[in-house]
């Protein structure tokens, strides 16, 4: 049981004190430190990075470049790695697909994707596989998040998977999967969107190739995200978007490109986003990921206990709570997930219903939709209680008389 309450750090709760926000996996709310520092950037340091010789441009360049280093430190990534900023995880995943994968995968090669991958992983890889005549294979999971097959073979060139699945809540055994893929010479695309800001991450213990994330799911502003990758992989990659800033020399007919990571960042970048991202990292560090993860595990364990006591709830994802991230997907017998979400909204409880951008997973699990609660550091035991009460209310509206 946890009695922590950090809503006071988040100004949104001043505006909406009664809100029970349980859609953190879609996007997180922002702590005061993030909104303040972002505003302060515009008031004190706003300028175009990398382009001017004057004071403010130097300042915004410094802030932007410091952001790369802070992301690396936050993930425990050493000098073998580099940060490339993008607007979100989706853009980072498209970047990898269009450059590394496009360049390295040939006809007949295999790209292996975990079936619980987000559409932002699957769709870009589908496009490349089609273009190159490569074969897209899947690692299948059952409703408890257990793998059903092993599709990794000697022909596998790419393995792509979420660190934590946003449709099942499963924390994958990333270390073992990285090893399995590296043993056959494959490169791994690890989608960290639901892991960053939730569990301690230490690249030093792993051999990560590509890691992608979105700032807005880890208390930072919307519009900033990125990838962290081995420099040796980045060095070998052609550009993605092209234009200003990513060049070295441009002549009428030819261009030479900037080095890594600038080569992958075309146009004026989101410095305020990077400032907000650094503030979010500071916020997370001020409590520490161990404490944040413990708090979220306590919420998971409490919510599971409450939900399991209701016979009309079907829960998906691992039984073993240590294999669960900060989200639970479920269905309420007799009520369509969209009706559940709308009825919970009447009680100011915000949850997600639908396919969670994982249609292939839902199809495989033979589910048309599910409900999802997901949470962050600001959520409390009381939020879970209000959520469970709202689920009971939904059953009442649908005419069920439940005895608990």
């Amino acid at each position, binding site marked *: 049981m946890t009695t922590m309450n950090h809503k006071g750090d988040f100004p949104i709760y001043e505006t909406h004190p009664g809100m029970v926000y349980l859609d953190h996996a879609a996007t997180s709310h922002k702590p005061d430190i993030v909104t303040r520092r972002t505003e302060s950037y515009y008031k004190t340091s706003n300028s175009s990075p990398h382009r001017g010789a004057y004071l403010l441009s130097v300042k915004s360049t410094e802030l932007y470049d410091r952001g790369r280093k802070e992301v690396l430190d936050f993930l425990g990534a050493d000098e073998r790695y580099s940060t490339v900023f993008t607007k979100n995880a989706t853009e980072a995943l498209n970047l990898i697909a269009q450059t590394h994968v496009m360049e390295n995968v040939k006809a007949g090669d295999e790209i292996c994707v975990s079936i619980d991958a987000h559409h932002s992983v699957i769709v870009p890889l589908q496009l490349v596989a089609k273009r190159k005549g490569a074969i897209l294979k899947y690692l299948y999971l059952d409703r408890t998040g257990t793998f059903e097959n092993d599709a990794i073979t000697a022909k596998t060139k790419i393995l792509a998977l979420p660190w934590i699945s946003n449709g099942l809540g499963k924390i994958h055994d990333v270390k073992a999967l990285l090893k399995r893929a590296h043993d056959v010479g494959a490169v791994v695309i690890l989608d960290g969107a639901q892991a960053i800001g939730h569990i301690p991450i230490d690249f030093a213990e792993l051999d990560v190739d590509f890691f992608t994330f979105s700032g807005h799911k880890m208390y930072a502003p919307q519009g900033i995200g990125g990838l962290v990758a081995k420099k040796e992989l980045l060095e070998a990659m052609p550009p993605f978007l092209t234009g200003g800033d990513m060049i070295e020399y441009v002549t009428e007919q030819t261009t030479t490109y900037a080095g890594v990571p600038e080569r992958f960042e075309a146009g004026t970048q989101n410095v305020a986003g990077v400032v907000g991202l650094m503030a979010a990292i500071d916020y997370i560090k001020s409590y520490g990921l161990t404490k944040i993860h413990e708090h979220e595990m306590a919420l998971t364990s409490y919510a599971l206990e409450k939900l399991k006591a209701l016979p009309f709830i079907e829960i998906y994802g691992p039984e073993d709570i240590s294999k669960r991230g900060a989200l639970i997907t479920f269905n309420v017998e007799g009520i*369509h*997930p969209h009706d559940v*979400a*709308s009825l919970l909204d009447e009680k100011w409880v915000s949850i997600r219903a639908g396919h969670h951008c994982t249609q292939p997973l839902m199809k495989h699990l033979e589910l048309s939709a599910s409900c999802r609660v997901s949470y962050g550091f600001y959520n409390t035991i009381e939020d879970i209680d209000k959520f469970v009460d709202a689920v009971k209310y939904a059953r009442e509206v*649908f005419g069920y008389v439940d005895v608990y």
Partner: protein
Amino acid sequence: MSMYTETIMWHNQSGHNKRPLEGATHVERGNNPNCGDDLSLEVTLENGVIKDAAFSGSGCAISQASISIMIDLIKDKAVMDAKKICDAYLSMVKGESVSEEMVDALEDAQIFEGLSKMPARVKCGTLGWHCLKTVINQL
């Protein structure tokens, strides 16, 4: 105000319009891949009049109640009148203004006016109506 009024819950549960329709002249299937609503509207047309209508399939309460209320409304109506009702309904849920006369004609379907403020649910509440529109437009 709750969208889940007694009328909607009654239509969702009664199932009086959810039945096979022998001798249907038109069948139109509609689905929302986003949430898995998958309903088929069956209609029997005779001399430009909707003699009977029913639906089958599965979906959320909003989608099922809305198609069921629609069926009650359009039964025994001339196709042209059904079309007017259908257009008025689709305007209403988009938040567009609808004449008082047409609002009255929508009867129980007026309950769905609130959908104009629930963008995530508009597709549920219009699924059956789009099936009807397709049937009419094909004539």
